[in-house]
């Protein structure tokens, strides 16, 4: 494989078909580096001797094809394409003395290194998985012995338990803003409890609003909640038969009194 400009047109039929297969298979790649590694195999040389320029060409061709076939590529594939286009220009153009930073050759060397390292990790991963494994090739004691029944209880927890326990608490905190602010809410139960105690004294018609507890009258939010709670509680008491309720006309004050004949 030469470092020369790599022409799409000179691809053989089989190569083109291979490239198309790559595109169609794009789902199967674990990111741009994985794709580059696969492409690099078509060069049939040791990764140390790989032509990064040719590889960049292949990759850009791949992206071009994908676009042509209207296949959406994930952003990181496009980022890699942009970077490779940059690398290509660095490799082809004479170095600009005013430019600092790594040279094209250095960038290319790093990419080759990354590919070689990824390939190496794949190789050792395969070696690792090919080792004898516990529970498959060799085995631990099947019958752990319990000789003396001395009942000593220990408590255990794993780091995972610990971290999840902590996370549980912390995320509960994060949640706090979404919890309703209980300060300004009066429940019907609370109103009911209160009114049951007060109603005994009210033999005459009294405005329901006078039953609002102290501190719940001025603040609009609290007043709204307390009014609703008191009204609901009053309805409950009417239902229970302990009070009567009336309203002269629409929007007139609502009045309640203890039911005269107990």
């Amino acid at each position, binding site marked *: 494989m030469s470092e020369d400009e790599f022409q799409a047109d000179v691809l053989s039929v089989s190569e083109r078909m291979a490239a198309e297969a790559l595109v169609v298979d794009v789902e199967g790649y674990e990111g741009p580096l994985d794709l580059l590694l696969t492409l690099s195999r078509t060069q049939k040389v040791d990764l140390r001797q790989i032509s990064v320029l040719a590889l960049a060409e292949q990759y850009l061709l791949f992206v071009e094809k994908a676009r042509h076939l209207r296949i959406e590529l994930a952003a990181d594939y496009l980022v890699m394409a942009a970077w490779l286009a940059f690398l290509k220009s660095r490799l082809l153009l004479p170095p600009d003395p005013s430019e600092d930073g790594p040279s094209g050759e250095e960038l290319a060397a790093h990419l080759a290194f990354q590919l070689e390292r990824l390939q190496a990790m794949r190789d050792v991963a395969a070696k690792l998985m090919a080792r004898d494994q516990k529970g498959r090739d060799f085995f631990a004691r099947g019958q752990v012995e319990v000789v003396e029944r001395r009942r000593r209880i220990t408590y255990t927890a794993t780091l995972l*338990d610990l971290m999840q326990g*902590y996370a549980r608490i912390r995320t509960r905190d994060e949640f706090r803003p979404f919890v309703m602010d209980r300060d300004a809410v009066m429940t019907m139960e609370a109103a009911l409890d209160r009114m049951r105690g007060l109603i005994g004294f009210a033999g005459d018609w009294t405005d329901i609003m006078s039953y609002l507890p102290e501190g719940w009258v001025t603040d609009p939010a609290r007043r709204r909640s307390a009014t609703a709670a008191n009204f609901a509680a009053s309805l409950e008491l009417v239902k229970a038969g302990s009070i009567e309720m009336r309203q002269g006309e629409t929007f007139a004050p609502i009045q309640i009194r203890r039911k005269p004949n107990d």
Partner: protein
Amino acid sequence: MTDETETEPETDTVPPVPEEESLFEAPPMGEQERMVEAVLFASAEPVTVAELTARMPHGSDPSEALVHLRKRYEGRGVRVVKVGDAYAIRTAPDLGYLMHKETVEARKLSRAAIETLAIIAYHQPVTRAEIEEIRGVSVSRGTVDQLIEMEWIRFGRRRMSPGRPVTFVVTQGFLDHFGLESARDLPGLKELRSAGLLESRPQAETPDAEEDDDMGDAGQSELFEE
């Protein structure tokens, strides 16, 4: 007591191991003994001769292999015993006193204890009041006592604040148990989340509100900044 040389088990009775064993020829007795040994060791239950026969290559004679194996383990720390009509490897009775470790019954720590422990680990030194504030519920005395008894937490220095409350810190034993070099190595929320250990939830505006200024002091809270 056996008297074969240890490393060459099969020398006495067993013929030399044939390079290529015939498909229908039983493995040498030394090999059979190894097989029985491995099966007895790995089985959760005592194993019958019938079962050994079924598992071992055709033509094997587990009964004979068992005789050799039992002899080999005579006087050792473990021995081959007959349990009903099955066989198992058991600790020599005189060494039973070494086994108490295995009789320990492990139970999961309660959720309250785990949470309390976690708070101490992440915020140490921390007072009881602070633990309660973070958990949002009061901490029972039993929980703290249990953790102290397990030697996972201990009293730290008193806080220089009104009432001089005691603080709690985690112990070396705690670090050993959890395989940590220091409490600082505990992962932060963000890391928990990115490791998938924290359910992600649709967060409102703040994707990761990491502020925990409630304790404001020099505790481990800094771990959550970033």
